[in-house]
Every structure is written in structure tokens, then in C-alpha cells.
């Protein structure tokens, strides 16, 4: 009957049995939020690639207008484009090149007739993909009527911005949840200890040293935090997997194949450890502070 090893601190049962569940919940929510951030990050990366490089601005010739007039309008468009932040350079394409592009549609015969064909301007953008295309489109519309940006890139950029905002929000939420989780673990640990003040005091009066008592309670706090955290992480993993399958089913082309980057995995794995560390430190601080009030 004496074989088992005796810990002096009570287990986390009764009032404090729910510490691991609280930690599980917090790790779960943090895991979800962290995953969301990671997915957003990768989507944004992929979309951004689509915006890198260049866009094309089209300047339509007016019917019956002279080449010179159109040239002037291309110049006007160029100055507007070059004044736009995020634009690296803008090169009007040679008429011959444009003709080559239009040929499949209009046919050689027509082209040779010296038709007024549209002028194209190749605009190189910086790598961030953050050039203000919407503003550019607007300014072009007023300054050079009959010019326009090739359409879908403007859209893509708007979407990208929204995704970026979402990512920012997701990161903020991760931070908020992390703070809330830390606060909850602190609360739950202290709550668990509140019931055990008498145990602490008796151990103290019997002659146990402060560090010894604190160690007992720390040990008892780490384990439930660890398994609570692990359960939370597993549940988060399952949830993310399910959501991901669902999302993939609904829409294949826009979502990139998400890769599990090692730093992200490390971050996730750290969640239960962080929970355990917070619980342990809280237990130590709480016990030590309580003891410090005694002789």
C-alpha cells in the first residue's frame, strides 16, 4: 500500500479538473486562427505572383483621327502612368508589334489597309504588386478618354488587397486569442490553487521550503496543461483538415495547394508547450506569492 509515489500537491481534480479543458479550448482556437493566417498568407503569395511583372494599357484610336493625334494621346497616357506609384517603367509598343498581336483577329489584309489600330503600352510594375491600379484606371479615364487597363488585373489587385486585410485581421485575432488564452491559463491555474491554500499552508508550517512547495504545484500544473493543449491541437488539426477538404471541393482553382511550412508546424507544436509553460510559471508565481505573505 506504500508502493506508489506520493505527490504532496493534490491532483487537478474537482474544482480544477477543468484546467486542461480550458487550455484545450484555447489551443484549439489559437490553432484555427494560426492555420487561417497561414492559408491566407499562401493565397496572397500566389495571387501576388499574378500581379508581378507587367500590365497592358490600351489606347484606342478615335475613328478617322490622324496617327499624330493618337501618338499625342499615348504620350499623355504615358505621363499619367509614370506618375503612378509602383510603376517601374512604361514602354509604348511599336505599331508593328501591335499589328502582330491584332493580326489573328483582323487578318493581314485588313491591317495592310493602314487601319487605325489600338496602341498598347507595356507597364512594368514593382515586385510587391502594390501599384495603385484602380487609381491609375480612374486617372487614365479622365486624362485620356478611350484608354483603359486590361481588366482583370485591376480586379485581382482589389481582391489581393482584401485578402491582405483579412490576413492582418487574422493575425490580430491570433494575437488576441493568444493573449486571452494566456490570461485564461493564468486564471484557471490560480483558481485551481485557490482551493489548495490550506495544503500550501500546512506544508509550509510542517517545514517545507518555498521552492519545494512551488515545485510540487508546478509539476501538477504542467501535465494537465500539456495534455489539454495536445487535445486542443489535435482537434484544431482535424477541424482544419475538414474545412480544407470542404474548401477544396467547392473551389479548386483559386486556392493554392497549401504547403505545411516547417516554421508554421513548429508554431503549432509550440502551442501546448506554451500553455504548459504559462501554467507552470503561474503556479510557481502564485504559490511563491502566497508563501511570501506568510512568515
Amino acid at each position, binding site marked *: *500500500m*506504500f508502493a506508489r509515489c*506520493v505527490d*504532496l500537491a*493534490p*491532483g487537478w481534480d474537482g474544482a480544477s479538473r477543468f484546467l486542461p479543458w480550458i487550455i484545450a479550448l484555447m489551443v484549439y482556437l489559437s490553432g484555427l486562427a494560426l492555420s487561417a493566417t497561414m492559408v491566407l498568407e499562401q493565397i496572397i503569395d500566389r495571387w501576388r505572383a499574378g500581379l508581378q511583372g507587367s500590365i497592358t494599357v490600351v489606347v484606342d484610336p478615335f475613328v478617322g483621327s490622324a496617327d499624330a493625334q493618337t501618338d499625342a494621346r499615348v504620350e499623355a497616357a504615358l505621363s499619367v502612368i509614370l506618375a503612378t506609384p509602383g510603376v517601374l517603367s512604361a514602354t509604348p509598343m511599336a505599331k508593328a508589334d501591335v499589328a502582330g498581336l491584332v493580326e489573328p483577329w483582323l487578318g493581314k489584309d485588313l491591317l495592310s489597309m493602314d487601319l487605325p489600330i489600338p496602341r498598347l503600352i507595356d507597364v512594368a510594375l514593382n515586385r510587391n504588386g502594390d501599384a495603385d491600379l484602380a487609381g491609375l484606371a480612374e486617372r487614365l479615364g479622365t486624362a485620356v478618354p478611350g484608354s483603359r487597363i486590361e481588366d482583370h488585373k485591376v480586379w485581382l489587385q482589389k481582391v489581393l488587397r482584401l485578402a491582405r486585410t483579412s490576413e492582418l485581421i487574422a493575425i490580430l485575432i491570433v494575437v488576441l486569442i493568444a493573449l486571452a488564452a494566456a490570461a485564461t491559463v493564468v486564471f484557471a491555474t490560480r483558481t485551481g490553487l485557490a482551493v489548495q491554500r*490550506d*495544503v500550501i499552508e*500546512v*506544508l*509550509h*508550517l*510542517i*517545514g*517545507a*521550503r518555498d521552492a*519545494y512547495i512551488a515545485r510540487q504545484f508546478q509539476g501538477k500544473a504542467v501535465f494537465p496543461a500539456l495534455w489539454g493543449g495536445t487535445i486542443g491541437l489535435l482537434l484544431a488539426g482535424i477541424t482544419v483538415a475538414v474545412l480544407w477538404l470542404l474548401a477544396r471541393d467547392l473551389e479548386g482553382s483559386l486556392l493554392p495547394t497549401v504547403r505545411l511550412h516547417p516554421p508554421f508546424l513548429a508554431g503549432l507544436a509550440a502551442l501546448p508547450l506554451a500553455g504548459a509553460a504559462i501554467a507552470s510559471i503561474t503556479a510557481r508565481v502564485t504559490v511563491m506569492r502566497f508563501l511570501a505573505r*506568510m*512568515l
Partner: protein
Amino acid sequence: MAGANHLVRFENVGMRYGDEPEVLRDITFHLGPGSYHFLTGPSGAGKTSLLRLMYLAHQPSRGSVSIFNHDVASTPRDELPDLRRRIGVVFQNFRLLDHLSALDNVALPLRIAGARRDTIQEHVAELLTWVGLGEYLDAQPRTLSDGEKQRVAIARAVISRPRLLLADEPTGSVDGEQGSRILHLFEELNKIGTTVVLATHDRTIIERYKHPVLHIEQGTLSVRRNVAKGGK
């Protein structure tokens, strides 16, 4: 201040809880090694409070308390556990740890002092059997009767052979026969050198054993020689 080698020395000690008026005032006395005193006084007079000062649970609001020739106020905090380990306490309300079995409760002082596991085992079981709890070694305190809890508390107080034994109403919940056994145990411990202070209301005990009495009333302490006044 005066002569050395006092186990307990109080000089002009006052004590209060929080901001309330003093419960104890101008307490001055000393206990030599190997002495045995009863502590009496009406309910609420401050017996438990005086013992709290002795087992280093409370700081005096004034005056000086020394235990084992250490002035409590000037002893560094990390030396106090060593003093406490030499004091055995039977708390008035037992203060057993509910999550530990009777046996583990009694083993606590040995374990904290780092004793070897096999010695612990043997001693504890023997002592518990001696106080009549041989069948309750593994019982949780909440399943014990009050008298049984009190005996566990007593076993815990004496297991480590303390130099100073402070017992607060240690026979309040046990029957006469058990009470006699316990008092006999205290006498034996006292004979081999343990200093005993025993707080009690029970006049028959005080009259049976002729030990000097520390009497508290109205917050002040008087020491009385306990001359036989008609005891059995």
C-alpha cells in the same frame, strides 16, 4: 536577553490579527528544554493564537519571540523551515491534507525532511497502529470520524520526534481511553527530552498531571504552579 538555552522565549510580545485590537498583550515567559506546560484559558482567550506564534505561523506585532535560541524576527527566512521541522504541531482543527491517505499524512514531515522511504514506511505504520488506526492506513481523512482524524493529526505531530511539541486541544474528540494513551505518549516523549505545550479545557487532565500551567485571560499570561487540588 537573559540566560541562554531556552527553547521558547517571549519578551513583551503583542499579537493582533489584521487591524483588530491586540489579542495578546505583553506576553513574557520562557520554556526550558524538557519542560511540560499546560495552556489554559477561557474560549477565545488566545491559546491558539499563542501557539501560532510558537510554531512560526504568525508574526508578533511587537516584542520578540525566540525559538531554539533563534530570534524569529532576525532569522533569515530560509532558515525558518529548519526551525519548523523541529516543532511538532497538533492543530485544533487537525488540518489533515484531504487528498492524502492517513499514512501519507503522517509521513509528511519525514518526507519533507528527506527521510529514506523504507524507514518512513515502517515508522508510520507502527505509530498509526499504536494510536488504534492500524486498519485505516489507507483511509482518506474525509472518511474518518473526528476522533480518528485527531489521532492521525497527533501521529503526524510526533512522527519526526520534534524537540518542541505543541498540541492544541489534542484530546477534544477522542474517548477517555484513547485520551489516556495519547497523554501517556506525550509524557514518554517529554521524558526523553521533548518540550511539550498542551492547550486544553479539560480540567481532569490538568488535575491528573501536575505540570505547570500557562493561563491566558484578557490577553495576558500568567504562569501557575499546578499544585494538586483534589485531582484523582
